[in-house]
């Protein structure tokens, strides 16, 4: 089950790491497609921890999918019934799921949390650049001065929509350009052609629209790619995400060398009517997940049909998950961590991390505590997909970066045969439940040990250890005096391995 991640006696994660792929393909033509789920996706309704079902039923009965309807992935984990397309990716070893991704000091403001996720900043700092913008800028410091040019004739990134993605914001300019329709470079906010009045104002406006569209520096390369490219499958109708991904596939197929595409789907802010009353299988969230799953499935099929899929990975993110308890409006409120999906044949297929633990008594406002830091996901993708050195990832994201095996050299193994990358961490808290003192006992192999306590809102409230410990068994005491009774979680990080477990204070 567990793979010894050892090489000549060194743990891989302790070494400066080069890309897993660099020997396979020196001419990096890889594409990253980011799918932003705007509003805060209810991870617990998308990916249901079957081993927690009874406690989920206690906390969110009015929205919970009936157990028999859940699409089983593993014995303990299943998808929402509308996500058969994504389940197929899993069964074909093209899906990596990372459980409980978030950040310490969860902020439940949409804006603030989106800023954190797009900039890659710590929760207590505001950064003006995006995580991908910084990556691009590390290679193209002068941008946009002198771009496009002969060596880089194509846009570095494209945001499908009307406004450039903050993920691609550099210090001087945004590295992404917006695109609604690859055949007409007029941004949506400029209005549909022909809707100008027949007045001098209208005539001048028309002139400006046309000239702006024509003078886009990348107009020629994009139009050429759109005209050369093709789509080989049918995409779901009336699915805006599908339309965006269809255009992404078209442009990749047409030879556009753009490295990052950002697409988005809104509506995940399901405070109310997440499901219809008494019909947990239908409702807004169900429709969203259906759109998401069908769009991804069609996109992947299109890439596969054109033999392009080994060049492309996709990754979802959302500003936060939602609370464990549902509300009386058949919805859920802003929460904390949630699962993140990475797809494509080059992912490390399977599930990273443990199922979230649902307490039998869920306090109001409780969210899912983080197991993985989103910046570690980003950094690992940068390393393995874009061949960024680990030291640089630390500079671009955070100094405590821990590599995660999200990707692997492209292969076609099935999920059952997939390499298991994670060595099980042995750790427990006792007594559990506890009154004032709890002890966390764990075994380590000499790694850097970060042990911290999270409250039910998903905020890291205590750091018990943050240093290298010798190999062996350890016991660390946690003083819970003065803390309100309720659920807490310890999160143990041993270099790149993480475990989050619940403990109950009486």
């Amino acid at each position, binding site marked *: 089950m567990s793979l010894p991640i050892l090489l000549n006696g060194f743990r891989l994660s302790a070494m400066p790491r080069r890309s897993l792929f660099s020997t396979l393909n020196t001419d990096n033509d890889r594409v990253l497609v980011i799918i*932003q*789920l*705007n*509003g805060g996706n209810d991870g617990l309704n998308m990916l249901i921890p079957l081993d927690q079902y009874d406690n989920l039923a206690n906390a969110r009965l009015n929205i919970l999918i009936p157990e028999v309807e859940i699409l089983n992935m593993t014995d303990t984990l299943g998808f929402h019934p509308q996500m058969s397309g994504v389940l197929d990716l899993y069964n074909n070893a093209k899906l990596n799921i990372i459980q409980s991704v978030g950040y310490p000091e969860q*902020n439940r*403001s*949409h*804006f*603030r949390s*989106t*800023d954190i996720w797009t900039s890659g900043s710590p*929760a*207590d*700092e*505001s950064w*003006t*650049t995006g995580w991908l913008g910084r990556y691009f800028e590390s290679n193209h410091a002068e941008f*946009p001065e002198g771009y496009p040019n002969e060596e880089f004739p194509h846009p570095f990134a494209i945001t499908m*929509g*009307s*406004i450039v993605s*903050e993920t691609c*914001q550099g*210090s*001087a*300019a*945004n590295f992404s350009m917006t695109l609604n329709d690859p055949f007409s470079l007029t*941004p*949506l*906010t*400029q*209005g*549909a052609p022909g*809707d100008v*009045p027949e*007045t*001098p*104002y209208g*005539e*001048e*406006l028309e*002139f*400006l*629209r046309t*000239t*702006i569209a*024509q*003078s886009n*520096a990348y107009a020629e390369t994009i139009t050429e790619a759109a005209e050369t490219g093709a789509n080989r499958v049918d995409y779901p109708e009336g699915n805006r995400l599908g339309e965006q991904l269809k255009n992404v596939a078209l442009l990749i197929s047409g030879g556009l060398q753009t490295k990052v595409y950002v697409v*988005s*789907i*809104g*509506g*995940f*802010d399901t*405070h109310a009517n997440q499901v219809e009353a008494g019909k947990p299988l239908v409702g807004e969230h169900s429709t969203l997940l259906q759109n998401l799953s069908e769009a991804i499935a069609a996109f992947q099929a299109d890439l596969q049909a054109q033999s392009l899929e080994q060049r492309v990975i996709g990754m979802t993110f959302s500003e936060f998950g939602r609370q464990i308890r549902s509300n009386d409006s058949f919805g859920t409120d802003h929460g904390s961590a949630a699962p993140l999906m990475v797809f494509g044949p080059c992912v490390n297929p399977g599930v990273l991390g443990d199922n979230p633990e649902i307490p039998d008594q869920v306090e109001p406002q409780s969210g899912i505590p983080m197991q993985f830091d989103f910046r570690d996901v980003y950094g690992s993708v940068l390393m393995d997909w874009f061949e960024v050195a680990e030291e640089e990832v630390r500079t671009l994201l955070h100094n405590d970066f821990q590599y995660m095996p999200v990707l692997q050299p492209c292969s076609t193994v099935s999920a059952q045969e997939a390499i298991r990358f994670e060595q099980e961490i042995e750790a427990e808290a006792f007594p559990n439940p506890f009154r004032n003192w709890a002890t966390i006992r764990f075994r380590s192999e000499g790694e850097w040990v970060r042990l911290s306590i999270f409250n039910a809102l998903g905020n890291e409230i205590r750091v018990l250890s943050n240093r290298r410990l010798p190999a062996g068994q350890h016991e660390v005491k946690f003083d819970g005096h003065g803390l309100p009774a309720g659920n807490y979680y310890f999160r143990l990080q041993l270099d790149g391995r993480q475990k989050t477990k619940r403990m109950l204070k009486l």
Partner: protein
Amino acid sequence: MDRRATIATLLGRKPGAAQPVAAPLVNSGLEPYSGPWGYEQAAHLLRRSMFAPTYEQIKTAEGQGMNSTIEQLFAPVPAPAPPLNHFYQDDPLVPVGQTWVDAPYYDDVNARGYRRQSLRAWTMELLFNEGVSIREKLTLFWHNHFAVSNVNDAKYLYKHISLLRKYAWGNFRELVKEVTIDPAMLQFLNGNQNSQNAPNENFARELLELFTIGKGPLADSGDYTHYTEEDIRQMARVLTGWRDVGLFSTNPDVEVGSVFLPFRHDTGAKQLSHRFDNTVINDLGDQEYAHLIDVIFQKDEVARFICRKLYRWFIYYVIDENAEQNVIQPMAQMLVDNDYEIRPALEALLSSAHFFDMLNVGPMIKNPLDFILSSIKTFGVEFPPGLGARYNAYLRLFSSSVLQQMEYYAPPQVAGWKAYYQEPQYYRTWINATTLPVRMLITDTITTSGFPAGDFRVRIAPLAFVETIENPNDPNALIEEFVRILFPQPITDDQKAALKEVLIPGLPDFEWTVEYNLYLANPDDEELAEAVATKLRQLLQAMLSMPEFYLS
């Protein structure tokens, strides 16, 4: 030709054919505007009379009404304090923080550069702080009109622009007189080389063709209806004898100015053509040039000529039959009746039914200075406190205007910037593949990261501004108000929906209310404030990149 047909022609369409013969789009004339007065009218008046009014200025104008606003626009404003040495340590005569406008040069030529930079920064600052006054817009109008360029001595330029500013809405004839012997103009059009023995016609030609009466149709060989080639020759003789003094002078006793040198002056009689009623101009020494200007201004065509230019500066570039008959003609008559005082005629234009005609609202493509200033002034942008950093920030804006093909103190032609004379493109010459990315860049920069000026970043600070609008916590009201602030005409519901998607992507409306109120309730939470500010900046970035914002 009526306006619609004219526009169709400009667009390369064939007039007539399938289209019914349309009545002129605009029938209104110079008669006083008597329609409703509201935010839209106040905004239109101020946008055209200033380099971008602030929201507050528009609201005030809305409250005080049209007449008071016009009065305020034309109210006397004291001359601005002169430009300062903002950083240059090596000028022995001008310490940093002092003005150089009366200081001589010295042997080190480097002082020339900092003074020019200082003049540019100072000019941008003047535009930024113009207040509710039409003076700066008129100063640039005259600069476009006389188009002095290729003069490198900042002291000359300062004196020249101060002259134009002094006359902003003053007497056109007296302004032409002063400009004729202005040292920068003497340098620019070679008046300083014009002597009895070596007459130089350069200035005389432009005086007629571009500055006063304009060139009419060719009536006969050498006869341009309003004047003849012979008139140019004769008038050049009238203007002989003038020299500028003080160019880059290091002599502390020499002030920048002009002198009349009788020995260089042609004292003979000058016989004008029948176009000037065969007038003979006899020797009047250093007053002869002024007499010549009086003679030219006897012709009412001068009034029509300048009124057309004012029309293209303040209203639109197409002057159709209606505009010629019902606006230009009566306005020119008013100018003549008022002895060429600009103010009454221009006030009449800016308070006319024609000016406020809905069809005249919005079709003007902003020139680069208008564009830059409207992108920063509307929302309040702070500049760094120190003189050097502040001037440098203004120089950044100045450079952007240069890249957008409008450089203050350097009109590209004697005729000025093409946008105001070049058929058929006119305003559209501002927009091309070179200038568009520069326009996009400046609005992107100013709305997102800002540009550095010392330790300071000059960028839009939207939070304080947003509090001044009604119901800022309602995303629909917010967008509606932003549209009114930024765009000359309404936009479609689809566009508003797209903008809301920028402000609150994929979120229901109430989340904006929740987040905005959360920020209000936690004024000390910097991250929260920054998060709300970021959303507003994204909205502004999107709106400022829309072509609607390019129009006034």
